């Protein structure tokens, strides 16, 4: 069915996320940026509202796992603050990986991580190919009953604070993406080194790390899921991750558009609000139009994912659009504010840096 209106349930959770975004994420943004993480007060709010894990499975989880709902939620969180939104998505990832790919036992075993302050870090991207499933060069080799992992991962959210990692590697490189598997790797495993990215451009509330894996041994039951099905499920996890990042990008864009619109309505120059000038008004029109295009691409990708599509091509298209729009719209919003937009008094310089920094995660 073609439709452009969220269901009542989706609207309810979106409204909740919007409220948390305005009341918590927005005011905490600068603090979180300085501290490089999610403030404890916000963690508590996320737990109380169910936004810490807005999907099913066991204690602590709430709601349903559908990509459209999660896309709506991430858009709102991104509207509040891009860095915190990405940090929250990073905390979801481990549970999403267990839900989508893991066996029942694996899910049970790792439920504990849901309640701790330290989430599971999921290492998906690589420097060379980003998230592209056909370019994963980290390998897993069967060594007796165990596996040995070798390679390097990049842009791993919470990579230096997590006690547990889930690492994407290829068990059968000759099969291409069909060989992709996820492996549970404890943070203290021999041969695993995590290095935090220093002085990142943006998204500082969501610190990222690079992982180096040199002959890291993990037992047989560290592999998530069973059999070939897990390759499909892994691809769906990648797609969902890209959809969530796109949601954040759309949210950042909307924040920047709204902020610059209200500024243009009240800023007086030449005796009238600057919105009265076509040079400003038309820029705003283009920002709004491109933002809507990005949002619709995102909704299409999410709806397809919910229909069981592996979703990679559509998610990828949505991400490319959302990221391009976020980069453009945040810069244009600063343009509307003029010199003021360049100052740290306004959040636009933060949003422009955050939008640009999303490239590390989604490319």
């Amino acid at each position, binding site marked *: *069915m*073609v*439709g*452009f*209106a*969220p*269901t009542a349930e*989706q609207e309810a959770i979106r409204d909740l996320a919007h409220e948390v975004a305005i009341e918590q994420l927005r005011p905490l943004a600068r603090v979180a940026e300085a501290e490089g993480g999610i403030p404890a007060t916000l963690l508590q709010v996320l737990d109380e509202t169910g936004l810490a894990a807005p999907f099913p499975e066991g204690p602590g989880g709430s709601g349903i796992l559908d990509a*459209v709902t999660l896309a709506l939620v991430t858009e709102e969180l991104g509207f509040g603050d891009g860095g915190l939104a990405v940090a929250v998505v990073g905390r979801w990832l481990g549970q999403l990986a267990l839900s989508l790919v893991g066996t029942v036992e694996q899910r049970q075993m790792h439920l504990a991580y849901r309640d701790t302050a330290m989430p599971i870090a999921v290492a998906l991207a690589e420097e060379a190919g980003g998230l592209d499933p056909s370019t994963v060069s980290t390998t897993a080799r069967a060594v007796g009953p165990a596996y040995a992992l070798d390679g390097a991962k990049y842009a791993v959210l919470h990579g230096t604070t997590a006690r547990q990692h889930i690492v994407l590697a290829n068990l059968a490189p000759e099969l291409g993406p069909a060989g992709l598997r996820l492996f549970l790797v404890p943070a203290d495993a021999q041969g695993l080194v995590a290095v935090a990215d220093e002085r990142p451009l943006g998204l500082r509330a969501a610190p990222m790390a690079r992982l180096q894996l040199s002959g890291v041994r993990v037992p047989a039951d560290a592999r998530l899921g069973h059999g070939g099905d897990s390759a499909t499920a892994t691809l769906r996890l990648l797609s969902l991750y890209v959809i969530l990042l796109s949601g954040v990008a759309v949210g950042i864009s909307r924040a920047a558009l709204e902020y610059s*619109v209200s500024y*243009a*309505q009240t800023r007086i120059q030449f005796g*009238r*609000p600057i*919105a*009265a*000038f*076509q040079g400003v*008004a*038309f820029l*705003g*029109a*283009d920002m*709004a*139009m491109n933002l*809507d*295009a*990005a949002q*619709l*691409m995102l*909704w*299409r990708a*999410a*709806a*397809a994912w919910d*229909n069981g599509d592996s979703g990679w091509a559509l998610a990828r*298209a949505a991400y*490319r*659009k959302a990221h391009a729009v976020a980069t453009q719209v945040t810069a244009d919003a600063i343009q509307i504010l003029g010199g003021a937009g360049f100052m740290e008094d306004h959040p636009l310089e933060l949003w422009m840096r955050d939008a640009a920094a999303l490239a590390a995660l989604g490319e």
Partner: protein
Amino acid sequence: MIGMELTDTQRMVQEYAHQLAVEEMRPISLECDRTEQIPETYFWRMKRRAPGGAEGLVSLAGRGTGGDKGREEIARDEAQGAFLSVLVNEEMAWGDAALSTAIPGPGLAYPPIRSFGSPEQQRRFLSIYQDEGLHWGALALSEPGVGSDVASIATTATLDGDEYVLNGTKHYITNGARADLVIVFATVDKRLGRAGIKPFVVPRGAPGFLVGRIEKKMGLRASQTAELIFDHCRIPKDNLLAGSDRDRAGGFKAAMGTLDATRPMVGALGTGIARAAYEMVSEWVRQELPRGYPFRRRHLLDDELATLGHEIDAARLLVWRAAWMADQRMPNSKEASMAKAYAGALVMRVTAAAVRIMAPAEPGPPKWFVEKWFRDAKVFDIFEGTAQIQRVVISRRLFGEMAAQE
């Protein structure tokens, strides 16, 4: 609910329209463009296969489902007329946008008659389109001195006994010289400004109604673009579309309301041309790229084409949303303008890229098609409100009425 999957009925309508595009339009497209003529057989075939134009096509395809289920589907289709129209329009433009404008039927005259005609007027003016002959309709808004500034219409209508007397010149009128009736926007009193503008139905053959020049154009050459002259043209008093008199700004609203309805359709046409060019250039790159084409340039091409493909999808989604909102009876001027502006810019971008990429191609149909579409494309940034006017509409929804006054 949020979803982008077509229902079976919608898909069927789309496929039927595509089939017409493939069978009736593409084979004669280049020749019609070259000669600026459309063979009479095309009109008869489309009359038979798509009676009533896009509107009729929708109900015809609906009937094709057969049985009670079919009737049910049609009943539901009435609530998705705008959506089905944009599906059909994209396919028609994929075939040939110029030929799609010439499908017999009331065309652009339909929305104002439908929205502002009394039941009696609807019967009187629309019944001929049900008969066996070839009939067209047209809408006359633009004048030599009136483009984007619709409120400054100079054509006058003066009541004289039981008749209105029209004076003025309209131009750029699609199907103007073959229309059985033309909706003419004229002012009954210039001092009233917008409130004085009213829609009149002028039948072909009305005394004082003359066809002037037929324009020669860069693109959409098979589409007939006429100048219409009203020199003391007399029409019956009750040819004023009645509903437009209900409130003071009724006539102007009729004109603007027409645009809200047609902009998503124009966006769909632009999307269809963009898709046609994208498909043809992609196929050429796959099959015909010159031997020895540098690998690095090939890689850049693939990337560019992938981006254009995504942008076509984005344009289509904006068009779909605007049409869906119209069917939900939601105000959609902003979204309609977004759809039109986005698709208008995109079709230029895609066709220009196709012409550039296919420059080394041998002269012949694939190349001539993309060159035709490139020539056709530019007007999508202009008619039904220029790219700038769309931005005025969007920005006023965004910032309020203060926007873009200067």
